């Protein structure tokens, strides 16, 4: 019975892929453990690779950190900054991008300034941000905002401008006014680009927040909370608690992955017509 054989074959294939994936992850940890324990295994002292904490120690440290309020607070701080910066970038970037796409006058006025400021990496903004903004929280959030903002604006403009001319002609043929064209053509036609810009922007936001937290250091009662996962990593380094560095790194990776996945899922939800191809 071919249908049954096919489904059995597919599930077997799926399991093989799963095992292969798991196997490679396990291999990674095994290799790591071996490299970190080379001095004990080979009886040679002062091997470079043994400076890195082995996974066993890292996981033990992580386990104990799960109950540590400071660790939880680091998560909370980073996530809230990312959310705030990203949301601001989306709420400001999409309208700005759309305005620049539909009005050539506005575009010519704004784009030169935008293009000159864009190459400045968000991290280069950190000092001026700290000087300008009254709280440390605002200064870090501003920098994360910048990262996502420029990406979203560029993607929105590109997306709106790449809508096929024929759609405009068809709509005009059916008697569409400029407002109708904007509402029924440009807005929905730009959504895929907005989704792409948002996903890339989210990735950039995470990268920026971590670095910004490392640079701006811990908090004081005056300037605000400080902290965050980036600061956690840096602080662990400075404080000499090396396993915590790796815990911090993995935490950032997981957080970034979850955030990007969430954005990607939302992107798929708002572009149902692309999911059917």
């Amino acid at each position, binding site marked *: 019975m071919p249908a049954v054989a096919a489904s059995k074959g597919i599930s077997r294939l799926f399991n093989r892929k799963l095992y292969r994936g798991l196997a490679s992850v396990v291999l990674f940890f095994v290799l790591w453990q071996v490299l970190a324990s080379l001095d004990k295994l080979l009886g040679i002292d002062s091997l470079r690779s043994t400076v890195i904490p082995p996974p066993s120690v890292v996981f033990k440290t992580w386990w104990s950190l799960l109950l540590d309020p400071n660790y939880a607070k680091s998560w909370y701080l980073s996530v809230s900054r990312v959310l705030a910066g990203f949301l601001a970038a989306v709420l400001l970037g999409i309208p700005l991008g759309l305005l620049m796409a539909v009005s050539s006058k506005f575009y010519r006025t704004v784009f030169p300034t935008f293009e000159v400021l864009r190459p400045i990496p968000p991290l280069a903004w950190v000092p001026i941000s700290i000087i300008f903004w009254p709280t440390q929280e605002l200064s870090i959030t501003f920098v994360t905002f910048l990262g996502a903002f420029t990406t979203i604006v560029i993607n929105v403009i590109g997306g709106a401008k790449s809508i096929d001319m024929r759609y405009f*002609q068809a709509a005009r043929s059916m008697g569409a006014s400029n407002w109708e064209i904007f509402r029924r053509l440009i807005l929905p036609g730009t959504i895929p680009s907005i989704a792409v810009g948002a996903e890339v922007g989210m990735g950039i936001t995470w990268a920026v927040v971590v670095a910004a937290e490392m640079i701006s250091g811990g908090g004081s009662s005056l300037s605000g909370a400080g902290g965050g996962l980036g600061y956690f990593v840096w602080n662990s380094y400075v404080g000499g608690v090396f396993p915590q560095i790796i815990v911090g790194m993995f935490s950032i990776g997981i957080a970034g992955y979850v955030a990007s996945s969430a954005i990607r899922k939302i992107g798929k939800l708002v572009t149902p*017509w692309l999911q059917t191809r």
Partner: protein
Amino acid sequence: MAVDHCSLDIAAGEICMIVGPSGCGKTTLLNAIAGFHEITSGSITLDGNVLCNAAKPKADPGSDRIVVFQNGALFPWKTNLENVKFGPAMRGIMSKAEITEKALGMMADAGLAGVEQNFPGEVSSGMRRRVEIVRALMNDPKVLLLDEPYRALDSLTKSVMHEALLEIYYKNKVTIFFITHDLEEAIFLGHKVAIMTTRPCKPKKVLTIDIPHPRDYGVLTSKRFRELMEETEEIVHEEALKAFEAGEREN
């Protein structure tokens, strides 16, 4: 210059086929009628109203002359039904219920029942073409401007589409301006066939096809059809050769 000294009269409710080699300027002519292109001299009138002339070189695009495009221009982010409802929904003259009823009815007439909730990308290109024609007809246009709509379809689908188009035409009696490079298609569908010269194009010969409507695919093997094909094949071939030698690009 894409079109020069072109003079054409099309009667109401007539199917007028424009045949010519690729790149000869047929699409420019259609675009001028639709209002996407400017004219430099002469005039285009519809039912006595001047659409454009030397004083007003570009016609206003409007729902009295709706274009169906070569590669289709259905909005991919809307379902087929939403696409079909687009024109009337935008103008808001009818109520939502009325629009939906009319749309469903017209889609069913065109053999599109069942794909209303699909996106254009999910159905075959033949169906997409039909949806686009229905979308145009929902606006009660006086003229349908078809720019080689079946060019990208395989010949099997094409033959079905021809009969489908005629069925829709018999129900709606709209004037049709149909650009094609397929002479057989032109003689099969049209009341009138205008064979265009190469760029700058103008009608080299205008034929009246006296095969009576309603037509079906049996017509293709009829004696009259063969006679008409013989009459026109040579003229078309002559222009095609000229275009080839002039190195016309595919549009």
